[in-house]
């Protein structure tokens, strides 16, 4: 992270409010202490995030005294894009990928931190820690810069940018153990609580506001659930769990048999969907 701050003119940290972002932000606070991280946070808001996430986001920025930029793709809003009618693929494309590109262009950021980890998904396993993007934000997996030792090539031409993944070599279990050891605040949605959910296509969706209409035959029930990963609420599956403490979550983790991204509806859309999204500029 200090490498980026020292070598780039205008870096930014993508802050998605999830547990990985929380860890990344915590590392940034440590890396620059006693100074503050010399870059702002950027949240790309799809307008479909859980309300508790937004509240947590604003509190965090205030608590740490950091500058927070929020970007919403107004064009997407105007086109009426939403996860129910547009489908998860189009929603993600417009409200996340496009929106992120808009924001990076708008502020002219030349380096952006992201909290992605190599253990999450197959194409992410091949991602560099310093990942080069063309002026149109595209990723070319066949033409990545070799990355030796801890020496990172940070040189870019005007308009090009670098995405930086400081958590590349962390696993999900590492993240939770670190949150536990460092007592890092996280969104309460990670802890089990009785929440209003509806079962749709085998996934438990929490109805966070009344924009979500129930289909015929669906009923809303209060169940004891928590989330392993957080995204847009209509696209994020809850798991039934009674883990309401960090210790409980870690205990649950070391016996887990499914990966966290299973709760993400966007990944199973089509084969290689993550690689495709990444080539287009998704994180």
């Amino acid at each position, binding site marked *: 992270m200090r490498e980026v701050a020292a070598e780039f003119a205008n870096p930014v940290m993508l802050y998605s409010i999830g547990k990985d972002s929380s860890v990344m932000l915590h590392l940034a606070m440590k890396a620059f202490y006693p100074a*503050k991280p010399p870059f702002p946070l950027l949240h790309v808001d799809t307008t479909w995030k859980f309300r508790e996430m937004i509240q947590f986001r604003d509190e965090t920025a205030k608590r740490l005294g950091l500058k927070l930029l929020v970007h919403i793709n107004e064009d997407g809003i105007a086109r009426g894009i939403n996860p129910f009618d547009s489908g998860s693929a189009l929603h993600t494309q417009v409200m996340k990928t496009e929106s992120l590109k808009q924001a990076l262009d708008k502020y002219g950021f030349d380096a952006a931190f992201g909290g992605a980890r190599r253990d999450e998904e197959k194409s992410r396993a*091949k991602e560099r820690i310093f990942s080069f993007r063309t002026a149109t934000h595209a990723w070319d997996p066949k033409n990545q810069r070799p990355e030796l030792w*801890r020496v990172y090539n940070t040189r870019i031409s005007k308009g090009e940018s670098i995405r930086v993944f400081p958590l590349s070599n962390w696993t999900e279990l590492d993240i939770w153990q670190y949150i536990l050891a460092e007592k890092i605040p996280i969104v309460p949605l990670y802890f089990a609580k009785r929440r209003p959910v509806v079962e749709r296509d085998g996934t438990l969706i929490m109805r966070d506001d009344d924009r979500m209409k129930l289909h015929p035959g669906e009923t809303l029930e209060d169940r004891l659930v928590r989330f392993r990963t957080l995204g847009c609420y209509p696209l994020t599956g809850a798991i039934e769990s009674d883990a309401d403490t960090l210790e409980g979550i870690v*205990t649950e983790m070391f016996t887990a048999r499914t990966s966290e991204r299973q709760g993400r509806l966007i990944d199973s859309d089509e084969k290689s969907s993550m690689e495709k999204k990444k080539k287009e500029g998704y994180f």
Partner: protein
Amino acid sequence: MARAAQRTEASALSAFLAAQEKKSLLRFLTCGSVDDGKSTLIGRLLYDSKLLFEDHLSALEKDSRKFGTTGGDIDFALLVDGLEAEREQGITIDVAYRFFATEKRKFIVADTPGHEQYTRNMATGASNSDLAVILVDARKGVLTQTRRHAYIASLLGIRHVVLAVNKIDLVDYSQETFDAIVQDFAAFSQRLGFSSVEPIPISARFGDNVIATSERTSWHKGPSLLGYLETVDVDTDVAGKPFRFPVQWVNRPNLDFRGFSGTVVGGRIAKGSAIAVAKSGRKSAVKRIVTMDGDLDEAVAGMAVTLVLSDEVDISRGDILSVPEDRPEVSEQFAAHLLWMAEDELLPGRQYLMKLGTATVPVQITALKHKVDVNSLDQFAAKTLHLNEVGYANFATSHPIAFDAYQNNRDTGGFILIDRFTNATVGAGMIDFSLRRATNVHWQALDVGKQSRAGQKGQRPVVLWFTGLSGSGKSTVANLVERALFAEGRHTYLLDGDNVRHGLNRDLGFTDVDRVENIRRVGEAAKLFVDAGLIVLVSFISPFRSERRMARELMGEGEFIEVYVDTPLEVCMERDPKGLYRKAKSGEIKNFTGIDSPYEPPELAELRIDTTTAQPADLAAQIVRHLRDKGYIG
């Protein structure tokens, strides 16, 4: 009851966390030839150590039926080959990192490509690994790729190797075949300096000797692969080495605090210890070791900290802090191994950027000593390096830098080379030793300087660098400019491309490598003439931006004027004063600029002249006027 259950759960958790903390981390890579079964082996390790999640597993079963090459059985390779292109072609083209843990250790595996054109990716994987698992297909034995990978692993400092003889099932678990391969490998690898080579017969597809030792190879007395990986001691005692701290960032939140942030990459440092700045030799002591969780008494290798010193010492990013009694080398010349990683060949004499630790400096290769044949380890003379080739060279940086030998410290002895125009990472270097002559050959201080020589002549020395295609009119205009200056009593010298090639550069041809050296020598010659106080006119095609920039950087501020003689190719071809374009087009001359060798036009030339709209005499007058306006001549 509930409380008792909670207690057991809590103690299970703390036992688990305690076990996690005790686990050491082993980073290893798998390499070998195409189709030797690397990806299958890693898939097998993940599968058999029960580390696959159910959703990954069901996706794998589905994919196996679709793309699998194992006839309906689970194809473990599909688990690891992440990218679409790889799945379709069945090869691994990039490094994939995998994570798994057993009760004894945590592992990070770099799965690296076998294909020859991805050797650089293998080097990438090796640079961060402590051990290499080299796979050999039992049916094929030791191949060129096997040797190459063993060599690169050793070059990048890996000291421990597992020779995994895979597909042992396909040779009927034959001990004879296995022993022959082991001997073959040993004959080659004894010159590579590995401290251990562990041969293990395996079948990645059926799991023999992967997790548990197999009945079917009862003749094999050694451990299984995983058993070995869990217990091998790779002795990476970086904390026992001399203290090294490359400064990454100067931490200055307010006027009262000035700290130096970075990661300790060797040894340890305690509060109160004396330190020295490697380059300047300035000494101080550590006043505080600052972290967000409070000050520390000691920091060891691997820790990221901010150091506050007891004195105001001038330190910036790129400096290395060390213990005073064991400092890194400081030199502007050193010898290093170089792995070339770019499609474009290495151009000795061209200036590249070198990034070592946190320091970035311009660097040149002053002598390519030899190239290494990775099959025989023989050395032979070479003028350049191509993609995936390894050489040994002398390097000269534009100013002194601090470093260690790579074998003593990877972080302060390994560097990358960056192309100044494409910004691509083109090479990886491992420093061998510093060339002492740099420390001992000092500049001879002369009493009569550039200023006084120039002052005597009543002019400011400068290089007028004419660049343009053959036949563009460079020499014609340069000649007229020199005549005009001479007539005014100015002191000049004209270096002409053709003339210089009859003498100083008689040994050079027209390949890219030679063109770069041609310009380097002319640049140096021009620099001496500038030092002598002359106005130097250089008339050279000088087709590459890099070399013109190198020449510019040799001179002082304001001592270089680039004159772009911008005559279109068609006009030059029509003029063809020496009949060269005709010969080039007929194939009689090779590597002719504009025909089959590129010309890169200047982007920021001080002067651009157009010979199609003005007479040479007028253009020469324009240039002389420019010299007068800028105060080079009175």
